[in-house]
């Protein structure tokens, strides 16, 4: 019976997330529909690139999310290591596949955009290389969870890796400033304010927020699933002990 007491806190989380999920999901749906309508139909074509600029509305939010998810993973890992909060390492574990998918999408859409725009699918400049490294760090993190059998050991090892890998995040962000890169410099998160055409902002911003709420929805869903899987495993152990 004592095994089940450790799920007291997570039970509260399960209840809370069950109430939250439909709302976040609905918000996500609304933002994505609005955002893509804006992106595909309302926003203006670029004066240089024409209609191909619309790949940006998929590429930029994916890239942001790849980094944001890693940041939250590292943050959750720090909480897991320092305060040993039972939900923190689950949050980190469930975030990783979402993050690697966003990063992969960012790389793929970037490649698709690069070929018509700059004549090349890939170039080894600082931004692309550091995002590719982020992709590999994600894979290594997932690999640790998959190969270490003991759950508590896996969570602590993965937490250390997540924190070590977080040095890559400032490198990615400032790579376009520190080096001469083919990738364009920052036009949104700048001290002087965005330099982008204001007609593109509703689409871009709503899609960035939409992707973020999408991440939260999927994260809550996966965390629920993970908690249920752990509960089942604990019950199976209990049953085999009797």
């Amino acid at each position, binding site marked *: 019976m004592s095994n089940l007491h450790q799920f007291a806190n997570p039970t509260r989380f399960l209840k809370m997330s069950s109430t939250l999920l439909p709302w976040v999901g609905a918000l996500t749906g609304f933002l994505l529909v609005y955002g893509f309508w804006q992106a595909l139909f309302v926003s203006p074509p670029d004066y240089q690139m024409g209609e191909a600029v619309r790949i940006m509305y998929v590429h930029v939010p994916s890239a942001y999310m790849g980094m944001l998810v890693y940041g939250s993973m590292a943050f959750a890992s720090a909480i897991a*290591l320092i305060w040993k909060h039972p939900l923190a390492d689950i949050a980190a574990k469930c975030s990783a596949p979402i993050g690697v998918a966003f990063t992969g999408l960012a790389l793929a859409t970037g490649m698709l955009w690069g070929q018509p725009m700059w004549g090349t699918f890939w170039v080894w400049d600082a931004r692309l290389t550091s995002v590719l*490294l982020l992709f*590999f760090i994600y894979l290594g993190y997932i690999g640790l969870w998959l190969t*270490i059998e003991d759950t508590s*050991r896996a969570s602590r090892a993965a937490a250390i890796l997540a924190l070590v890998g977080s040095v890559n995040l400032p490198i990615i962000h400032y790579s376009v400033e520190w080096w001469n890169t083919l990738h364009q410099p920052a036009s949104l998160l700048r001290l002087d304010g965005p330099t982008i055409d204001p007609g593109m902002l509703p689409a871009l911003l709503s899609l960035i927020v939409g992707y973020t709420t999408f991440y939260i929805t999927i994260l809550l869903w996966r965390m629920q699933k993970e908690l249920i899987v752990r509960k089942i495993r604990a019950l199976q152990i209990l049953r085999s002990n009797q």
Partner: protein
Amino acid sequence: MNAFKLIVEKDIRLALTQGGSTMWVIMFYLLTITLFPLAVGPDPEILSRIASGVIWVAVLLAVLLSLDRLFKPDFEDGTLELLALAPIRMELVVIAKVLAHWVTTGLPLSIMAPIMGVLLSMDPNGYPALVVAMMLGTAVLSLIGAIGAALTLGIRRGGFLLSLLVLPFFVPALIFGVMAVDSTISGTMARPNFMILLALFLVSTALAPLATSAALKINLE
């Protein structure tokens, strides 16, 4: 300090007498580098263009393969547990073992690098830069590799996962190491690259032992 010295001496002695690990590392180094002229063709023009990069990649792979012996033997026979209980900080144990690892892996690789340069028709003006950059670079690789080795310590056949974990973090040392050598040869500004290599070394020395000892403690419970 006495304990530190003892650990360094023990590890170096074990590496040199038991199984001749330094010898295998150098053999692997030589063989890997030999593959490139065989694959790319013997044209000295092409070889000298890629020489510094090839030597660095060979060193990277050799260090990667040698990371297995950093903690695993001690973990398997219980020495690591005794070291954890000893009156010396775990971080110092890590630094001692990494130092011994570097002396028996990185240092020989760096000293032999000019010979590899001869095999690849490298411009001789780059030899001093190659040795210095490589000594700094391999120290960084040993330090960062120790984190990966400690994280994958308990995993059976964790060698592949170790590579996946550690190679992304090797990349900065690789990039700036090659740039340090190439910029010396071509006469352009070489000093910033060496400064960044030195910075990488200092940051790794300060932070890698912390992560490594935390990872070791996970596996020692």
